[in-house]
């Protein structure tokens, strides 16, 4: 996987936001991660700890909110999570259609501290 390059992109955005908001330190970064992206928390955290050293992000907590991919049944309209090796609707058995839920990968919010405030 490519968590290293992705963590670099993530850090770039977080530092940009920290600067724009006049943060002296970032205490947490909340990420929304769709499970189809396959990113592992341990791996992101490992690179984050290493790459954030000496920046206002050092020591910040990465809060990952995973989103399970959702499939819609074209017959009964049910929105469901898949079982392994199947995309079939658990209610009526019709093969479902993948939605964009589960593809997310964005920084939702950050907690920051400002000097002297």
């Amino acid at each position: 996987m490519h968590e290293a390059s992705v963590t670099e992109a993530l850090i770039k955005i977080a530092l940009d936001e920290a600067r724009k908001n006049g943060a002296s330190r970032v205490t947490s970064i909340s990420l929304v991660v769709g499970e189809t992206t396959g990113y592992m928390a341990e791996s992101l955290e490992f690179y984050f700890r290493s790459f954030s050293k000496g920046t206002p992000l050092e020591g910040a907590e990465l809060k990952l909110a995973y989103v399970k991919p959702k499939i819609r049944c074209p017959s009964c309209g049910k929105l469901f999570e898949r079982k392994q090796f199947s995309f079939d609707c658990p209610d009526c058995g019709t093969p479902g259609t993948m939605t964009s839920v589960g593809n997310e990968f964005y920084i939702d919010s950050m907690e920051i501290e400002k000097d002297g405030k």
Partner: protein
Amino acid sequence: MTERISVRRAVYEENDRMAESLHGRLAKDGVFTVNILGGPGAGKTTSLKQIIARLPRDTVSVIEGDIASDIDTKALRELGIDAHQIDTGGDCHLNVPMVESILSGMSLKKGGWLFIENIGNLVCPAEFVIGEDIKLVISSTAEGSDKPYKYPSVFQKAAAVILTKMDLAPYVGFDMDYFASGVKSLNPDAPIFPVNARTGEGFDAAVAWLKSLKAKS
């Protein structure tokens, strides 16, 4: 005092922006770009040769992405194809800067084709746009009919699937209905082209589809 700020920025934003800009430049010259994805040994290069054999040779350029060899590039060049090599030195996918860098030394035919064969990997290349018009997935019967279920992302993003090694299907217990149903769930609009890349069987339909898509672009 801690303050919460709303960010809502995609981690891929910079890559996506660069890819969009590159795509804009390619499209301005009428170049149709196909990002070819598939696992190692699926038949990406062999399929590419069959596709190119059905197109005017001088309209085609190829970028071959590989981790550490230029065997495929050499094989394409021996056929007189304008092929260029990106050696990622271990990276699991191609990215926009790599493509831009190799393109700077290439002269693409206006109104032609650019095929980019990505690294053999069903996971990482699916996550990154590299300036293409479409992603084309090459999957083989020998890999098994469960691939859409195990690697949904790559099939979700594919404009079409070329299914190679059809001659092996009876020997490897390939279940076409199961495979096709998985692809349809992930991507209802993606056609599947069953082929034999060694004989060329099935490629006329795939290339006709590619041409119609290019004409519409």
